């Protein structure tokens, strides 16, 4: 008995000492952070005038800024090239330490953890659906502040792209890699089936599906991946709101609106019809789940991001001619547009004007015409600045991939009011949408039930989120 109580006591003591150990190590990290800031302030003090504005008169030599991004593979290499170019060529003596943080989801989650310890980056690339979260986070400097302080001319930035990241007429983050979804189609199959006009909505796709399989030789009319982004785009194409409070743009959303305005039911009914007629069998979940069938010559059409164009052309490798068309609407009378996807650059507020100024210089470099033309040619994302259209690199690229013109036209045909929704729990909402569509396509529920389950699930998440994050 006594033995046991002593053992317990010792355990308790050790647990306590362990906790204290943790505590002291925390303090030590804090000190290093303070030291760093101190040395930074020293640099700042060297500057002739210590102005709060990140203008060109701040001495930034020797400043290192940390840039977190989520670009792997070919895109990552292209980004590394740009970072290296900036590091060797910039005249301010700024060094950018670029760090790959994994996929978009990983990247935003790491930022959340890092901000807890206040040891994050100066510039972070965050995906479109993280926008509302970032605005509400209180960790950031709105890009508009940096733009205004520098008097930067925004007129060249694509208005339909900037609209997505603009809330209360303030641009919160700088668009960097933007894409829209488009319809890819197999021209050879369309020719064989004798279809002259590419379908512009889901109902038309269902109508031509029979001809494509019987005459065109397609295994399936369209390989339609179950992807939350597509669902959002169908909502935008109807000109309808996804959530309330002006699509989450006037204030944080409190509930979804796609159930009450009927847009979701319309989308899902058409989707279900495609699945049931066999025109769009279940090819799995995710943005690129439909691509393999298309590249293999099995499906006559697929939906995919513009950023996939290069990959598709490489995989098809001349086996057939690849055509591109606008992302389909649900029915012929829809009057909306497409919204953009991709990611943007967020400046993190580290209470350090020198770093802020350096970050702005780097952002300016990344969205310059030359960088964007290179970026577009390497990755297939839009050039976010129209000035890039004058660059030779861009002209060569569009001559080589004329299909890309579709994407640019589609973007210009859209309008800022179809910029899409902002929602703090978007990543989760997307999962909910995909799960319910999947259940519907697999015949476990009707479109009505799917819409109800989506709305209930997402509304519960929103309520929960708003409850603990005021």
């Amino acid at each position, binding site marked *: 008995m006594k033995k046991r109580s002593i053992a317990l006591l010792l355990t308790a003591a050790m647990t306590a000492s362990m906790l204290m150990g943790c505590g002291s190590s925390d303090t030590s990290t804090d000190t290093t952070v303070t030291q760093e800031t101190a040395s930074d302030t020293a640099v700042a003090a060297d500057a002739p005038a210590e102005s709060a504005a990140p203008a060109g008169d701040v001495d930034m030599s020797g400043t290192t800024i940390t840039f977190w991004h989520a670009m792997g593979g070919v895109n990552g290499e292209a980004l590394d090239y740009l970072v290296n170019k900036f590091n060797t060529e910039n005249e301010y003596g700024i060094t950018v330490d670029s760090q790959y943080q994994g996929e978009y989801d990983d990247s935003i989650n790491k930022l959340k953890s890092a901000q807890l310890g206040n040891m994050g980056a100066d510039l972070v690339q965050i995906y479109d659906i993280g926008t509302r979260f970032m605005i509400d986070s209180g960790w950031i400097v709105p890009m508009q502040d940096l733009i205004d302080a520098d008097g930067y001319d925004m007129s060249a930035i694509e208005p339909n792209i900037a609209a997505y990241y603009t809330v209360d007429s303030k641009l919160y983050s700088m668009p960097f890699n933007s894409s829209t979804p488009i319809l890819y189609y197999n021209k050879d199959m369309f020719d064989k089936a004798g279809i002259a006009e590419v379908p512009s909505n889901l109902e038309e796709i269902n109508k031509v599906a029979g001809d494509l399989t019987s005459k065109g030789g397609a295994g399936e009319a369209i390989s339609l991946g179950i992807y939350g982004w597509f669902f959002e785009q169908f909502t935008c194409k109807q000109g309808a709101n996804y959530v309330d409070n002006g699509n989450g743009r006037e204030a944080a959303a409190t509930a979804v609106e796609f159930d009450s305005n009927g847009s979701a039911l319309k989308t899902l009914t058409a989707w279900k019809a495609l699945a049931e007629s066999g025109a769009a069998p279940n090819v799995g979940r995710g943005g690129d789940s439909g691509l393999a069938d298309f590249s293999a010559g099995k499906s006559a059409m697929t939906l995919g991001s513009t950023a996939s164009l290069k990959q598709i052309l490489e995989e098809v490798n001349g086996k057939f001619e690849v055509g591109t068309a606008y992302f389909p609407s649900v029915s012929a009378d829809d009057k909306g547009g497409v919204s953009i996807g991709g990611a943007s650059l967020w400046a993190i507020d580290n209470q350090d004007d020198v770093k802020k100024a350096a970050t702005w210089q780097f952002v300016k470099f990344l969205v310059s015409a030359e960088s964007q033309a290179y970026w577009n040619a390497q990755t297939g994302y839009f050039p976010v600045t129209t000035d890039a259209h004058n660059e030779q690199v861009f002209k060569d690229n569009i001559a080589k991939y004329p299909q890309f013109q579709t994407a640019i036209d589609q973007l210009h045909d859209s309008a800022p009011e179809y910029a899409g929704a902002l929602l703090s729990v978007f990543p989760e909402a997307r999962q909910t949408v995909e799960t319910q569509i999947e259940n519907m396509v697999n015949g476990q529920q009707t479109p009505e039930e799917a819409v109800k389950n989506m709305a209930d699930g997402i509304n519960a998440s929103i309520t929960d989120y708003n409850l*603990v994050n005021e």
Partner: protein
Amino acid sequence: MNGKKIKVEPYFYLIPSFLVFGAFLFYPFFKTIYLSLYKTNKMGQAKLFVGVENYTSLLTSKSFYNSLIVTLVFVAIVVAGSMLLGLVTAVLCNKAFPGIRFFSTAFALPMAIASSSAAMIFKIMLHPSIGIINKIFHLDINWISDPRYALICVAILTAWLNSGINFLYFSAGLSNIDDTIYERASVDGASHIQQFFRLTLPGIAPIMFYTLVVDIIQAFQSFGQVKILTQGGPGESTNLIVYSIYRDAFFNYRFGSAAAQSVILFLIIMALTLIMFRVEKKGVKY
């Protein structure tokens, strides 16, 4: 108690191990229980005390019961599959024959393959239009997007991955059985099948029990293959409880609910382990 002086010294030897356990096991464990009583904000900090609400909402959620059932089915397939595969391969390699080194390496190899990379390879192999499995068998099955097959595919992959280590354990167990008892049995006229059931199986029973316990725990914790192959889908047909915890915690940033699920998972595994040790005392003879 019995008049002996209590020695303090031995407890000091425990300090290093307790420090490590404390930092990496006890502290996270108690923190998990603490978090399971709260709702957390977007940073994952405990914000609102809700008592047992996280548990009650789990226990009334269809999705959670679905996760439990899916997990149990998955564990059953994985454990049965990996034990059977490990046992068969180990028995096959118990006899010396030319090329045995090649075969034993091949059978043990799965334990050296990371679950994620294996899942990547399976994802390509199982692809409905370009995958090799449909090509070879002239099938047109959408393996990982069809709720009827997805769970089985993930389970078979996991069973194969876990079979490598089982092969190793069973081989060790088999080589511990004295050859002379087989000789005596054949002199007495026992067939090979009789020998297998009367001599081999009882001989490796202790090691089989050990692998069973480890396999069950391991199967409960499978994660990488689900994340890569199915992300819990289609629908929620492969939403294993560990994956559901991951999604709630690191995707939805609802640590409270995730912590509550972890605690329930812990209770299930603990109960299973206790039951198995009970059974072992009765059933397994050393």
